[in-house]
């Protein structure tokens, strides 16, 4: 009798499948059995076009976590980061965040999501009550809008409205000095681009009332070809151009605009230029582009900041990004808060975080503060300067004045009906 393999699923493979299924569902309980360490969950974007957001956030976090762990951890508990990709999809961000807390036993969340993902994770934090620090979303309403407010939600990222106030006042001073009245804007066509540009123009006009916008361009996010946009701007013949394009979009825009010698014909203000992701990638970085600081190791011009930038470079073989310092700050704050509260409990940490002021390489005066009223970061280094084609890229940065920022921010909140 010959034995042939029967078609279909054999008993052995059925068993294997069942086994695999059991492992899938059992993993969580195995994971939970470990004690003493404190797990910190971090949903972020590690794949796709903005994967750099996730990788540089992760680097920033890990750099600090190693230091905290070496110094004894959070109130004696070693930090274990559980970092997962959300692919930039909000429903995945929410799912991953829930899974991190419910299944992997994470007691804290570092939400390194961008835009909509951050709001999705915010809802998870609202639902589960877990301490959550948003590290990448710059959308002001996330913390400014009282409807969004939850006692366990914090932000260590910069904020759109702060950038606009500083950028607007800086540009207005130059506009007055050089007589720049005819302005054009060119920003990516999505919420960040529209909002940031709108706020920037508001403050520019407020400080320099005779400025007028004669041309607006809204290229699509991740648009490969900017010829149309560049020629439109050139035809309008503005004296100055504002742009909040970022990352790869900004670098391809500059490379393409260079062909038309655009930068020789007008003053250019690009808020996201002074970040190593853009500075090091542009082929011929034009001299004299005005830019806000994102992360640059020469501003604040302190030994601490330079050392932090170099340590990061030494470890990861690339310079930090804006996201790196924002995420590093979250860990620094957590470490200080756990000392203050002498605990790693989420509720006690949240209590300690409110109003907490810590020493920071990224602080305008060497410190940053977690403002108690809306649980967002203030006092971080923020300023504008002009570029040169080689390191240090932005030799002199004119610091924004936090007193003015806070005054105007309060006014802005009132105008939005937030206070």
């Amino acid at each position, binding site marked *: 009798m010959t034995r042939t393999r029967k078609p279909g699923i054999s008993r052995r493979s059925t068993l294997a499948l069942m086994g695999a299924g059991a492992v899938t569902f059992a993993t969580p309980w195995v994971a939970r059995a470990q004690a003493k360490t404190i797990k910190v969950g971090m949903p972020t974007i590690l794949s796709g076009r903005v994967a750099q957001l996730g990788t540089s956030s992760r680097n920033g976090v890990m750099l600090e976590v190693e230091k905290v762990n070496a110094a004894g951890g959070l109130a004696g508990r070693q930090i274990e980061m559980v970092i997962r990709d959300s692919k930039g999809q909000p429903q995945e961000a929410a799912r991953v965040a829930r899974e991190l807390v*419910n299944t992997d036993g994470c007691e804290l969340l570092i939400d390194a999501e961008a835009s909509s993902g951050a709001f*999705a994770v915010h809802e998870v934090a609202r*639902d589960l009550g877990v301490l959550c620090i948003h590290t990448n979303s710059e959308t002001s*309403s996330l913390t400014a809008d009282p409807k969004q407010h939850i006692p366990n939600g914090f932000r260590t990222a910069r904020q759109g409205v702060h950038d606009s106030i500083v950028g607007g006042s800086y540009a207005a001073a130059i506009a007055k000095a050089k007589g720049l009245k005819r302005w054009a804007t060119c920003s990516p066509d999505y919420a960040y681009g529209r909002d940031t540009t709108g706020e920037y123009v508001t403050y520019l006009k407020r400080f320099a009332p005779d400025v007028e916008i004669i041309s607006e361009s809204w290229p699509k996010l991740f648009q490969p070809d900017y010829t149309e946009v560049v020629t439109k701007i050139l035809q309008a013949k503005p004296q100055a151009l504002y742009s909040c394009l970022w990352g790869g979009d900004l670098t391809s825009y500059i490379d393409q605009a260079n062909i038309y010698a655009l930068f020789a014909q007008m003053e250019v203000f690009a808020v996201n230029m002074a970040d190593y992701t853009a500075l090091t990638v542009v082929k011929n970085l034009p001299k004299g582009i005005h830019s806000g600081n994102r992360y640059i190791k020469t501003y604040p011009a302190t030994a601490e900041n330079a050392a932090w930038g170099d340590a990061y470079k030494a470890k990861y073989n690339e310079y930090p990004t804006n996201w790196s310092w924002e995420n590093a700050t979250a860990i620094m704050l957590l470490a200080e808060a756990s000392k203050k509260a002498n605990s790693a409990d989420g509720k006690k940490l949240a209590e300690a975080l409110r109003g907490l002021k810590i020493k920071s390489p990224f602080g305008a005066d060497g410190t940053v503060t977690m403002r108690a009223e809306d649980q967002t970061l203030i006092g971080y280094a923020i300023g504008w300067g002009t570029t040169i084609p080689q390191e240090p890229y932005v030799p002199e940065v004119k610091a924004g004045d936090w007193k003015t920022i806070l005054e105007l921010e309060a006014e802005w909140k009132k105008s939005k009906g937030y206070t």
Partner: protein
Amino acid sequence: MTELQAEQASKVLDNSITKSKPRPNRDALIALAVFVVLAVLPMLTSSKFLLDFVIRCAAYGLFATSLNLLVGYTGLTSFGHGMFFGLGAYGFGLMMQKTGVAVPVAFVATLAITFVVALVIGAICVRLKEIYFAFVTLAFQMLIHSTILSWVSLTGGDQGLRGGIPRPPFLGIDLSNHLHLYIVSCALLVIGLFLMHQIAQSPFGYTLRMIRDNATRASFIGIDVWRAKLTIFVLAALFASTGGIIMALFVSGAYPEFAYWTISGEGIFINMLGGVTTFLGPMVGTALFLILNDTVTRVTEYHGIVLGIVILFFAIGLRKGLMDFVIEWYVQRRERSGGRAS
């Protein structure tokens, strides 16, 4: 899968099904039993992961099964089915945020909106065949997606609906309680599947299969093909919309990604995984897809490669969904045992 194989598989399947006449009572009992099993699940396990998993299964399962009514039963390969998923999420979310009506009212109103939109879009699309139908549905999907992105004052643009979806309790059900949400999702899933199964087994369902196999013949024997296609297009949209509502409740928001083509792509992928020749194929595909997605993203950030390989394996290697294999294996076994008995 090739058409030939699809035909063979469906023959196998139809043989097994036609022997049993549609029995709504039996189906209702099965549905009830499934619901009871799902409902007691939280008492047996404290795993919130499992509850989340079932809720997402409900959302994607309704979506994928309704897509199969178009793809598998009617031969309409829609690449834009995700628009109704997004429409459901946004319709429900906006209704709850802006008007503050009761949950059931918002639910029904969302389905009503979906009905109207699907009727208009369907009336244009179902006249077309094959690739033209696929592309026009895709175009409508991108139209809806772009509208969501640009209508910032209403939809919040690319930031999505922020601030959470309020859900006042109704009839003793509080959807902000995760357990209640779980039970309601299970109920919607089971009812949805039951209704879709009734549709698929009804004379109308068999009309759809006939249209799929030979639309010309169908019209010659007096069937209004356009009307039949439009009817199933609208019905499928309603179930997809229900899936979207569950997803909106799960994430407590709605995001433009829900109406993006990738959601439609995931629907097609789920159908390929589970198989389009059986009613439960997409449901099995959903579970498989979510388990794959969850485990792979846990392990590696290069999930794109892994999922891509799985798609290739199913599309080129197996050329069938998992349920097709199960059914074939079952039929063969029965035939063998039948042969032995005689």
